[in-house]
């Protein structure tokens, strides 16, 4: 050990003897004493001896006689078991249990194996739980979106001045039919379709209105699964008043995202 380290520990001797070291430092210092450092051991011993003089400043006084009797009676009661064995069990579990570990190492192995098994099972369970929570969260978000969409649809349907235009299927899908509904005072327009074929991935359906012989886009939508094929709702945002002057409405199948003027086949046309 280096001289300066020894010096550092020597400085701890007085606070140690006075009981002023914090638990961490005391443990460290006691570990140092356990290494057998002769300087520190001598210093601590001398300090203990010196400080043990302090009680001699007080006038000596015998404790009450019954105290000794009680003490001896406590020892008699405790005689049933060896004091050091009892204390070892109470205060030194590591020392007391060490021999049993060495006699039965398989107990330790089983314990470790069980511990690993428990950890693995727990990890799997937690992973599964996290997955479930993620799934539930996604489902909850989807339901929330759906609920919001239905609220918006209801808001349109509950409108006092609801206007409705029916559309019927043309040659590509004669069984298809649709309705468009809107409140003239609001910007949104609700499209409902049935039996419209699922649109190819690179295509979208596009809703048009005709005004003064010109076609104007009102928005695009896609039918992407069987459920939507049966019954599909979508709210399109269009300008207020845009629908009032319309002469007709029709739906074509166009390139993804829609086009400026209708060029694809017409699937639905208004019956108005």
């Amino acid at each position: 050990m280096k001289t300066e380290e020894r010096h550092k520990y020597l400085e701890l001797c007085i606070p140690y003897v006075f009981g002023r070291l914090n638990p961490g430092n005391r443990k460290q210092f006691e570990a140092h004493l356990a290494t057998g450092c002769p300087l520190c051991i001598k210093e601590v011993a001398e300090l203990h001896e010196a400080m043990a003089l302090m009680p001699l400043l007080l006038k000596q006084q015998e404790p009450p006689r019954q105290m000794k009797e009680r003490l001896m009676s406590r020892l008699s009661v405790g005689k049933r078991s060896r004091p050091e064995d009892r204390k070892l069990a109470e205060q030194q579990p590591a020392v007391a249990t060490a021999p049993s570990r060495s006699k039965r190492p398989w107990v330790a192995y089983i314990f470790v194996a069980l511990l690993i098994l428990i950890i693995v099972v727990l990890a799997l369970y937690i992973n599964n739980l996290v997955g479930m929570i993620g799934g539930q969260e996604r489902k909850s978000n989807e339901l929330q979106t759906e609920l919001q969409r239905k609220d918006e649809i209801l808001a349109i349907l509950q409108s006092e001045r609801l206007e409705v235009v029916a559309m019927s299927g043309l040659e590509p899908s004669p069984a298809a039919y649709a309705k468009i509904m809107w409140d003239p005072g609001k910007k949104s327009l609700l499209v409902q379709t049935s039996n419209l074929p699922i649109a190819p991935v690179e295509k979208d359906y596009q809703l048009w209105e005709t005004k003064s012989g010109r076609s104007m886009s009102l928005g695009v939508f896609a039918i992407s699964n069987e459920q939507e094929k049966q019954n599909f709702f979508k709210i399109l945002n269009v300008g207020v008043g845009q629908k009032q002057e319309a002469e007709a409405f029709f739906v074509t199948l166009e390139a993804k995202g829609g086009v400026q003027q209708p060029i694809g086949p017409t699937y639905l046309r208004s019956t108005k």
Partner: protein
Amino acid sequence: MTLAENNKRDIELLKRMQRHDQEALALLYARYSPIVYPLAVRIIGSTEEAGELVQEVFVHVWERAGRYIGERGSVYSWVVAVCRNKALDRLRARAQKRRPREGEGSAPQGAPEQVTRFDAQDILVLKEYTAAIRNTLKSIPKPELRILELSYFEGSSQSDITRTMRMALGTVKSKMRKGIQRLRQAAKGVGEHA
């Protein structure tokens, strides 16, 4: 008999305690209880609690007799340190929360009463030693002694002492070191001449 020889006797008593010899504890109690009892009273301030604490001290010594390390001081200094630590622990616990006292012990049973002639001599040696120490300690300047008393009997920290004594921390540290040094000289001096 010198103090070193006295300590050898004490170590012999500890060995007997390891063999569950209660008389050995009774002898050690007869030697040191008149010193540790006033120490406990001084720190705790209650004679009743001090009596209980002295019992705890000797039960501690009984149970840990095999763990005494001679290199770290005499049996006497160990017993005194155990008493001081336990008393200060009680004092701190009391400061945090006043606890109800434990019930009274069981009825007294037959215990060794007589102190042998030999141990009576030992006790006489200790009394002479004590008288010598007290004379020597008189030479310690009062402020140094007061600082040692505050630290030893009341468990005061150095910063507590600066407030009590109205001294700078550096002065407290310096006087404490000097006081300890004088105590060490006293311990050596008396030890050599006893």
